[in-house]
């Protein structure tokens, strides 16, 4: 097991290298001159040249890439072209708000989503299923920005119960995590339901029922474990997406997170920030996948790692 984890972690290095190279090429292919953008509309050509050399963009591409790689190895991602603060600080400031928001959103949406999914599967085609799946479809189809605005209008503006924007207290987390989690809860509900419906038709469930086990034990003990595998996979994927920061939710709630940082960075062609963020997102996905793979083994002990 440990050996397996170690092997996976080593395998991480070439993947990240490849991602680093691709994203480096990609950002330099984007149209638009970052020096010109940073210098602003009133700048003269001499100023643009000054800004360019200040940002190190006057050097040949291979040298820029070497510098970037060398920096990454030394845990130095350079400074943001836009704010001139170290990229590590820029990302560090925003990582935790995004992380906590993701965690809270995932926590409630997984709990609610799985409950709805199980209830829908057990009472398939009866009213709990109808209600549950109506909710789920609404959750998927209702756009997050609209949900965010509606929630804010009701709970902040009209009722005055919750704060509008920011991330200062736990109360600030309620509306954004509801907004962010709505779609995830819906997806989880649908996944859980279909996975459970399949499992409940299996022979071993019939056997368990034939043994005279009560329905609750059949569902929770025999159904749950087996149904969880695809659900956990989906959970991992969703977690990864949310960790990338939701642009829409962060904009509406003015959340100091990574999604907005990425959008701002792309707008201003802030190469170092884009590169570091994409690397971070890839790393997050790889790690989450690893965790999901380990969870498989815990859920189903017949799975072996090599």
């Amino acid at each position, binding site marked *: 097991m440990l050996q397996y984890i170690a092997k996976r972690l080593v395998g991480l290095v070439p993947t990240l290298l490849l991602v680093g190279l691709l994203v480096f090429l990609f950002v330099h292919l984007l149209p*638009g001159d970052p020096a010109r953008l940073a210098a602003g509309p009133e700048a003269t050509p001499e100023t643009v040249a000054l800004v360019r050399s200040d940002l190190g963009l006057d050097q040949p591409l291979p040298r820029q890439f070497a510098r970037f790689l060398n920096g990454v190895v030394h845990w130095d991602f350079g400074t943001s072209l836009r*704010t001139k*603060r170290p990229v590590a600080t820029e990302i560090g400031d925003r990582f935790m708000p995004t992380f906590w928001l993701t965690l809270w959103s995932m926590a409630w949406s997984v709990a609610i989503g799985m409950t709805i999914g199980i209830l829908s599967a057990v009472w398939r085609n009866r009213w709990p299923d109808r209600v549950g799946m109506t909710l789920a479809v609404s959750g998927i189809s209702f756009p997050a920005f609209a949900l965010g605005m509606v929630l804010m209008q009701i709970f902040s503006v009209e009722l005055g119960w919750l704060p509008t924007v920011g991330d200062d207290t736990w109360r600030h987390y309620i509306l954004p995590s509801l907004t962010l989690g709505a779609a995830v809860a819906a997806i989880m509900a649908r996944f859980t339901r279909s996975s459970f419906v399949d499992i409940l038709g299996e022979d071993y469930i019939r056997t368990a029922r034939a043994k005279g086990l009560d329905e609750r034990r059949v569902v929770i003990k025999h159904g749950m474990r087996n149904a969880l595998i695809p659900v956990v996979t989906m959970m991992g994927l969703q977690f990864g997406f949310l960790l990338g920061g939701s642009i829409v939710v962060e904009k509406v709630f003015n959340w100091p997170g990574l999604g907005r940082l990425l959008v701002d960075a792309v707008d201003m*062609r802030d190469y170092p920030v884009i590169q570091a963020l994409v690397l971070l997102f890839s790393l997050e996905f790889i790690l989450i996948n690893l965790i999901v793979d380990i969870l498989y083994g815990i859920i189903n002990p017949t799975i072996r790692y090599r």
Partner: protein
Amino acid sequence: MKSLVRSIAAAALGLSALVAVPAFAAKDVVFAVASTFTTTDPYDANDTLSQAMAKSFYEGLYGFDKDMKMIPVLAESYDASTDGLVYTLKLRKGVKFHDGTDFKADAVKANLDRVTNPDNKLKRYGLYNNNIANVEVVDDYTARITLKTPFSPFIAQLAHPSTVMISPAALKQWGNKDIAFHPVGTGPFKFVEWKATDYLKVAKFDGYWKKGYPKVDTITWKPVVDNNSRAALMQTGEAHFTFPVPYELADVLKAKPDLELVAAPSIVLRYLSMNTQQKPFDNPKVRQAIAYAINKEALAKVAFNGYATPAEGVAPQGVEYAVKIGPWPYDVAKAKTLLAEAGYPNGFETELWSAYNYSTAQKVTQFLQQQLQQIGIKTKITLLEAGQRVEKVESWQDPATAPVRLYYVGWSTSTGEADWALRPLLYGESWPPKLFNTAYYKNDKVDADIKGAQLTTVSTEKAKFYKDAQETIWKDAPWAPLVTEKLLSAHNKKLTGVYVIPDASFIFTDIDLK
């Protein structure tokens, strides 16, 4: 039961105490603004917002009042030599920086020397290095600035929000780059904290030279990107002032009894530039036809919800030496005649680009497309994203192959003076990539006027030069002038003394909270 009543009463009491507290507490004002600040260093900023925010802690030698009239701030008066080369400035006495040092002539030298030194790589370098030759300290309260060539709008440049006085001691302590994280000026507020993701906070400076000011204790500048969220903050009372208010939310905020919506005049001119070096736009008749074909009144209503007025000249009213000529009349019949005379009775096909990709620009270009269709000109719309704009327009190297044709764009004359309204946009040497003459317009008479106005310090002569230039340009029509925008802001009725000035910067010297 009794205990329940008692606890409810206690809770109510506690609650009312909580609610009552702010009334006696410090006067804390919150400004909700539209984007994050790039820097606190005005010499290294290129966005109006960062410079407006920096007015909390920085002041210039000159400045603007709320009507954008120039006023002396840290300077008391100036004296220009007759050849227009040497400016001698008398400075205000008894001004202290936040770090306790005195404001003296050495600060003028330190700040201007800093920005004109290319090693410091400041974004405003070009603006100053073009004209400042050297700065001398005559005595503690007299500074002498010598220019390379006569440049009559020089004092207007000193009034620009980027020309501020940073404490020389602080500059020495923090260095050229880090000063942006530790701003020390002479302004009414001193810097407290900047959390880049969340807010920037400033607090009252007790040693401010203007006695009795500022009247509030703190200002928190809160960047809130989303328009609706900013409006929500105003409605809940979490923010006292917000700018800009998008047109579609104007009515919502107007309806709230505790808020006041203000539509202030601006010097933001929106126009359609035409590449005069390329067929068919090399023919003035085609350009005039396009200008005639657009109904500017309707455009203001459709795209700007009525918060704009048809453009009245080449430079908007409010800019010094701007001449009121228009608006350009809307006359489709005349447009068709002109187009036929130019040899295009059936119109032609061309590209219509917008310098912006937000929704108002989309509405504008669609409206323009439909208007030009009336006279047979078919256009293909492209809304350029910032990077594309830079690549395809602003830094295009060879004027002969420039792909820009019809180009919807705007300009805010940040110095408030005609030179900066005309020279970057219409001077023969300002073609991209140098500056923003996207019409690739060159008229020797206009060039001579702009140059002539720069060289003279006599106001009436300047006015004559600029009048001639603007009238010539108007007739030549390298642009179809469209509209002048209004600036929509909202503030809580308890807040007074905060103004949006025509260049979209803020004035808040008199800020107070009831």
